[in-house]
């Protein structure tokens, strides 16, 4: 099945003007219908709130996916993601989020996962990687998990056979588990 991105609205959050226009142009050529731009996390938050309150003025009816750099100031990508997932003013706590980062250390990628990111793309990247990550976000519709200390896409991506003891004590049928369909 071929991907048709014409109806997709993507918000690009990147402080480097060069990379920002590179990402915007690439997304448009890949067929993305609506690309909006923000210079850092705080501008992105303002924009997302404007879209919710006054979509005509914002120039887009909605945002389907956020593509954000990590290191920016004053509000970085991690803070933006936390706001989207946790804040009462968030327009959509389930917003698909693709984080771009020059940090490739495992600990950093792990940190992004703990914050509830959908995918991480490390710099330097290629257009192929960008395309693959977009598809991964679209195809992998993981369930969202809400526990005392986590809210975000299920960090367990695959159900691989495992020889050890299963440490997950809860199943769908457990009284401690609530399943919400929507």
């Amino acid at each position: 099945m071929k991907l048709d991105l014409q109806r997709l609205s993507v918000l690009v959050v990147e402080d480097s003007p060069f990379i920002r226009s590179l990402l915007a142009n690439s997304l448009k050529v890949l067929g993305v219908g609506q690309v909006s731009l923000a210079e850092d996390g705080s501008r992105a938050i303002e924009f997302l709130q404007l879209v919710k309150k006054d979509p005509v003025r914002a120039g887009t009816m909605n945002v389907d996916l956020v593509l954000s750099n990590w290191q920016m100031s004053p509000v970085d990508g991690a803070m933006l993601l936390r706001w989207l997932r946790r804040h009462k003013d968030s327009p959509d706590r389930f917003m698909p989020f693709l984080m771009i980062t020059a940090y490739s250390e495992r600990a950093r990628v792990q940190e992004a996962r703990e914050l509830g990111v959908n995918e991480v793309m490390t710099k330097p990247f290629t257009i192929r990687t960008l395309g693959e990550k977009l598809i991964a976000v679209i195809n992998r519709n993981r369930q969202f998990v809400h526990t005392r200390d986590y809210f975000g896409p299920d960090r367990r991506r695959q159900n691989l056979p495992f020889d050890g003891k299963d440490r997950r004590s809860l199943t769908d049928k457990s009284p401690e588990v609530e399943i919400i369909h929507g």
Partner: protein
Amino acid sequence: MAEAAKPGVKVRFYRLRNRLKDKTAGLGSGMDGGIEIDTAALEAAQKIFEEMAEDYPDWVSNQIAQLYELHRRCVDTPEQRRGLFEQITAMAHDLKGQGGTFGYPLVTTFATSLNRFSTLRNDIRDSHVEIIKAHIDAMRAVIRDRIKGDGGAIGAALTRGLEQVISKYRD
């Protein structure tokens, strides 16, 4: 998220309809299975990317000029070095992420080293400021001579030169 309405609930699973897929499935939607990206679109995007990559050296030259300016201020106003080093760290971080993307992995190598080295915040001496300059010089050489890839013998010589400056001035 609102607190549990049902007592004793420790975890909630939200199994939501895949709205992104609903929006992006073209012909043949409704079928199961993955969605693929259009190869022609991918190639067109790659072309745009390459065209922009041609502008990359000009853009980096600009960044390098700004780094030289920060270095000059480190020399002229030693009391401001802490803040200036912070700015250098941020610019190096930016350069680090971009060099490899546009075919200049040596910019990434030197920017990575500069990014790490410039995290120094206390007791910044003249020798440390010299090491900063050596990094900027190395990146300028890469861009001026359009040294792509690992740069072969010239790339190795630049890397060795930078390492020598670092070991000479360190401490």
